């Protein structure tokens, strides 16, 4: 820690809010990409007011500030690319209110997503966004990255649940973006602008999130196919049958083999698997289940299973939940991508990923949210070997190109961060990137808010 900066921050905040010693930079420098920067200081503020004080100070001293939730991101979003101050929200973990009349949860940014799930469900309410890391990621991070998850197809993503945000601007001034009302056309939709802004426009110190009534029933299904193509065709048939499953997940044979060997299961020897859940009222679930089963029967599914009880439901989802774990056990490095394509291009995207894997001799397991076109091609390798680094870089570039060619996007839910900034122009063109850049410059003229992200 630069001594002046350290002293200044200690006098600005309470000593407990400043992480001391050379350990701070190591602890608060990285995230799940394993990319890691070295901040000059790391803070754990105990209040939104402390964050405001820090921003005011940073603006005056022109020091970079990088907001950090739980550091679980997959794009390097909370990595302090240019040093400066990392501000972790881990202590701001209170659910302030769950309003059962307005159907709104008011939360501090460091609340764990799963904690809001349980709190809401305890009251018969539902907060649908559920990123894979929901047991340990934070809502502040979810909003900043516009996190998605398994329920995107029917329920949308974090963006669809953000009502209002408490913002500290890069100059230290504060305002509330959005409101607790469903309708609000007072000027620009600033809550949406800050959602998914990756901490580059301001610091989110609180959020009001929309809740919905908890669906009363759900039903789970597993459908096995000989080929990945057949499974991805089945996805389209399900959607065309007029129902919207709450989750519709796909797993390829590489992933299935990994899961089988990891969990000692012998019931996963297929080309591909679809895992499907429908929810709603009892009657609606029955209706959707009927249509779903018809669609699956016509799709040539080799095997079809419906969970008869909670234990069987659990058994079906256990395979999907252990997908990443099982793949990660094969080799020490895991690169989890999230290129996303329009749903009808899933078969083409899957073929493209296969070809890329073959071309570079890389092991790529593909699983993901087939229902919304958000696949997770997962490269399993050992990045300690230099040659692998180059292969991975080239393969990832080709995966992006394939997604873009099919009308898709670089990132469905992980964000651009450091990982994908090189590729922004391929999707947006020079004009698109420049338009974003102008917004960034207008709100953060000094460039102190999470620098080194999104833009090259």
């Amino acid at each position, binding site marked *: 820690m630069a001594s002046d900066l350290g002293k200044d921050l200690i006098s600005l905040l309470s000593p407990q809010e400043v992480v001391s010693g050379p350990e701070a930079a190591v*602890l608060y420098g990285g995230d799940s990409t394993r990319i890691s920067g070295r901040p000059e200081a790391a803070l754990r503020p105990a209040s939104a007011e402390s964050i405001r004080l820090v921003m005011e100070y940073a603006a005056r001293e022109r020091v970079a500030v990088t907001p950090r939730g739980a550091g679980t991101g997959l794009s390097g979003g909370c990595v302090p690319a240019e040093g400066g101050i990392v501000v972790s929200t881990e202590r701001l973990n209170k659910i302030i209110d769950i309003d059962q009349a307005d159907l709104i949860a008011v939360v501090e940014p460091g609340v764990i997503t799963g904690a809001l799930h349980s709190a809401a469900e305890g009251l018969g309410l539902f907060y649908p966004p559920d990123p894979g890391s929901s047991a340990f990621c934070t809502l502040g991070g979810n909003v900043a990255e516009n996190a998605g998850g398994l329920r995107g197809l029917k329920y949308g993503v974090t963006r669809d649940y953000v009502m209002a945000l408490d913002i500290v601007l890069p100059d230290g001034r504060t305002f509330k973006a959005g409101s607790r009302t469903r309708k609000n056309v007072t000027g620009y939709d600033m809550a949406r602008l800050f959602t998914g802004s990756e901490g580059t426009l301001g610091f989110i110190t609180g959020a009001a999130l929309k809740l919905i009534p908890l669906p009363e029933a759900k039903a789970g299904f597993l459908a096995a196919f000989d080929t990945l193509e057949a499974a991805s065709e089945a996805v389209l048939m399900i959607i065309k049958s007029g129902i919207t499953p709450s989750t519709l997940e796909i797993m390829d044979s590489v992933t299935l083999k990994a899961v089988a060997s990891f969990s000692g299961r012998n019931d996963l020897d297929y080309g591909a698997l679809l895992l499907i859940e429908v929810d709603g009222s009892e009657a609606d679930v029955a209706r959707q289940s009927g249509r779903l089963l018809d669609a699956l029967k016509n799709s040539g599914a080799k095997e079809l299973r419906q969970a008869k009880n909670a234990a069987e439901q659990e058994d079906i989802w256990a395979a999907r939940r252990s997908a990443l774990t099982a793949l990660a056990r094969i080799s020490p490095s895991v690169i989890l991508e999230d290129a996303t394509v329009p749903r009808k291009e899933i078969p083409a995207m899957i073929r493209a990923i296969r070809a890329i894997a073959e071309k570079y001799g890389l092991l790529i397991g593909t699983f993901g949210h087939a229902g919304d076109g958000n696949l997770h091609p997962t490269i399993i390798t050992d990045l300690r070997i230099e040659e692998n680094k180059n292969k991975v870089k080239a393969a990832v570039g080709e995966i992006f190109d394939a997604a873009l060619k099919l009308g898709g996007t670089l990132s469905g839910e992980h964000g651009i961060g450091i990982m994908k900034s090189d590729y922004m122009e391929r999707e947006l063109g020079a004009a698109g990137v420049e338009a974003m850049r102008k917004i960034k410059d207008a709100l953060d003229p000094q460039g102190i808010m999470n620098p080194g992200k999104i833009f090259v």
Partner: protein
Amino acid sequence: MSNLTNLSSEIFKCIRCGACRAVCPTFGEELSEIAVARGRMALIEAVMGGELALTDAFEKAVFNCAMCGACKANCPSGVDVPAIIEAARAELVEKKRSEGLVRFLARKSLKDKKSLDRAFSLMALGRAAYGPLAATPLAKYLPYQYEDFKRNFPKIPRKPLSKRIPPVSRIRHAKGTVLFYAGCVINYVYPEIGVAAVKILNHAGYDVAFIKEELCCGKPLLSLGETEAFRSVAERNVSLLMGVEADYIVSACPTCSLTLRDEYLKILPQSDNAAAMAAKVRDINEFLLHETDFIARLDAAEMIITYHDPCHLAHGMGVKKEPRELLDAATLGGLVEMEEASRCCGFGGSFSFLNYELSGRIANRKVKNIIKTGAPAVVTACPGCLMHIGDALRQSGADAVAFHTLQIFEKAIKK
């Protein structure tokens, strides 16, 4: 750095996903990256890379871990965090030579039977002298002031288990012989649980052998980074335990079971005896359910209970359903699951002596979860958890009482 370099591939496997934050008991209290497995891994890697020295803060981070193994059990990449932490501690012991009261006492008292006996008699004396005063305002005037002074420690009986049971407890038509390994806490603090174990194992159809001279399993030494002292205890225990003819070696302390089964193999990789011994080791719940028809020999007692998973049993040995099935059969009221049943109670052996304040906060979370179930009794399968949860329950003034699974089974044995 050799302690750590051997594990460099293991350390590299941590992808920094943060999944350990959801289950780490110290993180749950401190909410700080320095108190979670991922942070500890980052610090250890920085030390290995030469970026960070063996600072005091590093030492604190590495010793501030309860070694519950929840991180390892829930890690997507299966990183063996406890092994890495142990190696880092050994490195610190070697290079930094930090000394403290707990370390000094552990090294001196766990090394042989005589020292063990002496240490626990002293503890019994101390408990008798200080115990009644500990909860009173007079406590602060006592000459010995230690962080965990207010610990509500059970009375240590005069007669340890080794003076209560014979070398072999025989029955007619035995199916085989079980060597019962008591471990220090049962031997000295809860001998009645050891007596129950013998009764239960007999009832399940086995002769029970017991070695009066058994040593501490050595886990506290391993946890404190005292590798050489641990190796010596392991070697002597292997020859002691293999010197008795037995089909199984059974313990009612999961920390001992895990150490005998897995840790000796690691420290004595060349020893055929250690491997042969490991193959015979079972936790007593695991043994009763899988190797005997004990469950059919139970008369359910009228009782409502909740169950706490000991870390070394659930995360270390993967034994979760066995005690539950047995308890379900042993009680009429049945088992009410608590929230976070497999979250550490905060004991962690030497951890609670080094960090009593933090370990107490972890225990309070456990107490809250116990109270929420409304069950009047919490049952666990580890004497360490029993001691610590009992302490926390008494200090919080809760009505619930803590038991070892064997104390429940003992009540339910068919007459």
